């Protein structure tokens, strides 16, 4: 990608009043962020918080270092393997393909497969076996 394309991306960001833009193609990965977007004439949003701010239940959630994750398709209990006797669906270093089952989530005795939405290599499984997960919580980090 040459600088002209980057300029185009920057204009796109400005025109649409975005604060951040990410572009990915083949091995290129560009992220453009507008500095100090707060200085724009935005109304101050005040939202009340009480002294004991709510925390999301399924803490401790891993801090995700990349947006490259497979997320929970539903709320429930996450299982890394089909049964305690079976080996885990995936472990770090595994090559996975789009459509592979990488875990399963149980909600009210209904099991929902967690399916990879792209190819990749498993970098880290972010949630332990039998841990509760929220909808859209990152489960598996891939690279």
């Amino acid at each position, binding site marked *: 990608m040459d600088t002209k394309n980057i300029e185009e991306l920057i204009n796109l960001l400005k025109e649409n009043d975005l604060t951040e833009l990410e572009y990915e193609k083949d091995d290129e990965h560009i992220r453009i962020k507008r500095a100090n977007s707060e200085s724009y004439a*935005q*109304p*101050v*949003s*005040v*939202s*009340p*918080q*009480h002294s*004991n*701010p*709510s*925390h*999301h*239940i*399924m803490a401790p959630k891993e801090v995700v270092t990349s947006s490259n994750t497979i997320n929970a398709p*539903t*709320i*429930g*209990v996450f299982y890394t393997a089909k049964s305690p006797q079976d080996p885990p669906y995936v472990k770090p270093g595994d090559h996975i393909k789009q459509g592979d089952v990488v875990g399963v989530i149980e*909600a*009210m005795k*209904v099991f929902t497969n967690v399916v990879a939405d792209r190819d990749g290599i498993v970098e880290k499984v972010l949630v332990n076996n039998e841990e*509760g997960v*929220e*909808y*859209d*919580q990152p489960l598996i980090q891939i690279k």
Partner: protein
Amino acid sequence: MTSRLFKLNNSVSKWPFHKVLVANRGEIAVRIIRTCRVLGLATVAVYSETDAKSLAVQLADQAVCIGPDNVNASYINIAAIISAAQLTGADAIHPGYGFLSESPEFADACLENGIKLIGPSGDVMRLLGDKEQARMTVAKAGLPVVKGSSTTIDNLADALDQAQEIGYPIMVKASAGGGGKGMRIVNSPKEMAAKFTVAQDEAKAAFGSGQMYLEQYLANPRHIEVQIAADRYGNAIALGERDCTIQARHQKVMEEAPAVVVPARIRDEMLRRSADAVAQLNYEGVGTIEFLYNHDGSYYFMEMNTRIQVEHPITEMITNVDLVELQLRLAAGAELEPQLVVTHGFALECRINAMTPGKITGLHLPGGQGVRVDTAIYQGYVVPNSYDGMIAKIIVYGDRRQRVLQQMQAIIDETVITGIQTNLGLLAQILKEPSFQRLTATVNWLDDLQKQKH
């Protein structure tokens, strides 16, 4: 506050549940969380992806994302909500209004999973949720009902037959319905042929059932409803009534309490008969019996809502009873002292609706003596496109109706919500209309008024 409602030796001293999951969103979720916090009950907010920045999420002790924007996958997803309760250790669920609040399947699922639903049992919901069965049940329990079809109807031929017996004009309704969907007024057999299928298709799309129901149509009634509460021991009380006549396309716009059009003698009878009827239903919790009221003083049962009502604050103002607290205490097993609850003063509620989605860029909410605002919006909040547009309720309480109306006019004029379009202008207009001020409006009045102006 509510202690005087209960038998002294039986007020609940220890909660049988400690953490309440609020299976709703918007102002009612905030409303429920507030009372729970006063009572020392922990709260869990559940939310869709769209509502991640909602006030309820910020105010609750815990918050769980249960699904995407679409309500089928989030707010009415029974498995997701039960899971959220199990994962957080919530041992009670408050359903609010709308969504799963009148779902017998949800009530059953709570029971099966050992979670206390704040509301009546699935069986009672099933009975009262079916309009035909509900009508027969309350008729047996002593409430007057309009003439209606003896069974649910799924084809035009039966509709024409039954309509002949009841007499025109007739209201065609979806058996599973509410909120005006699948409803048509039919004046003749010819109109029935034209409108029945349309209403049925609408019902199928909205509620997944084409079972229809016919009832005698009262041309110009007012909508009067009675707030009731019942405990699991068969005691029931009425907490005054509300006049919800001001409606646009069957959606309430303004509500007032008490219903000053109803003469005291008839009012007392309505309240007593409502409480007596509910005492026979194995009902637990609060509920609302809706009536159509004619100028001649006759009134007919329309339906019973087995949940907290949007307009409950006006009843709270004139009774000094926190109805959400009452729900929680009844769910905890408190025993009511049968009594005539005395009301005082007058309260009016205006529902503020967003007419467009978007970010609220400027916000000024009113205040003053007797003013209450129930809302979940804040400056910078983005009103989503996906959910009901009701974003705030402004309530005024005072000693006389005239004075309350004047104060409401003043504070509606004062209210500022910018960045989105709202119905504030319409509310200001209604408040100035003589038909509203003089209580001569009927449930069709606002629709007719808007037709004239367009």
